[in-house]
């Protein structure tokens, strides 16, 4: 593996490791993914390279008082379209709020398919 590939691999590992720390954008990315950070899935959603996702993930989360400017800076530094990153972060925040408000159970129930043998919720 080339030195660059090794370095990127190490940074991907670092991004996964900090994805459980709310300090970092990686945590928001992980929230969107579910339980584990999926760099490729995020890259597809953002329309960018995996390396750009890793770079953004290792940024600290945008500050509330300067959210727009911080997201712009993160997008620019990482090589991600700002409007896509903003939309993504807002969607991830919604998902996180939905989950924390016990919406996770409803989400799981909505995903159950009776044909797969899942139980139907009581009416």
């Amino acid at each position: 593996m080339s030195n660059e590939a090794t370095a990127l691999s190490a940074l991907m590992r670092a991004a996964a490791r900090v994805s459980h720390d709310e300090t970092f954008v990686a945590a928001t990315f992980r929230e969107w993914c579910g339980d584990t950070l999926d760099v490729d899935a995020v890259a597809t959603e953002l329309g960018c390279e995996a390396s750009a996702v890793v770079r953004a993930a290792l940024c600290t989360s945008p500050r509330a008082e300067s959210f727009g400017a911080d997201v712009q800076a993160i997008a620019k530094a990482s090589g991600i379209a700002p409007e896509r990153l903003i939309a993504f972060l807002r969607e991830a925040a919604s998902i996180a709020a939905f989950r924390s408000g016990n919406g996770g159970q409803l989400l799981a129930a909505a995903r159950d398919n009776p044909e797969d043998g899942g139980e139907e919720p009581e009416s």
Partner: protein
Amino acid sequence: MIDRARLDRIHERVVAGEPTASAELFVLVHHPIAATLRKRVGTLLSWEEACDLVTDAIVAYLKAPTKFDPARAGLFGYVLMIAKGDALNLLRDRGVNEKNRERFVELLSADGNTVEETPNVKLDAERIMAKHHRELIRDDGDEAVLRLYLDGEKETSAYATVLGLTGLPGSEQQREVKVRKDRIELRLKRLRDDLDEQ
């Protein structure tokens, strides 16, 4: 070679709370520090473990950036120091065998800590003297002093006894013991420097 001025600017941005500063720090130093850490510790650490230790060290710095004083040291060395300390704790907790624990002493001491400042390190005096006898010991007095030193002995009287100085006034005992101990410490430091270059 990583530009120290660039790291200093990153530190200023971290302190200012700029969100992109952390990523730039990771990109700049993560791989080099992990490589340096593995070079120092060798095969005792896997590449993955080295990566994780450096990640945790960078995060520790980011969560308390004002603990770092750029006037005293460079940021690269600061993060490396945190990672090294955690690496040694990891290996110690893992119960690495005596031969490798001797290497812990060399690594710890390369950071400038003296043996007496690392009370948790149990030193293998026999192994060190057997392996580095020629570099450390010139006479019987040196051997006796070194044994006490590696055992963490702090009392001047103990050193004075093994050196046969108990007949001298207290102040002379202290002076003679200090000369001997300083000589031993200097030889240990030279030995650490030589081992670090290998």
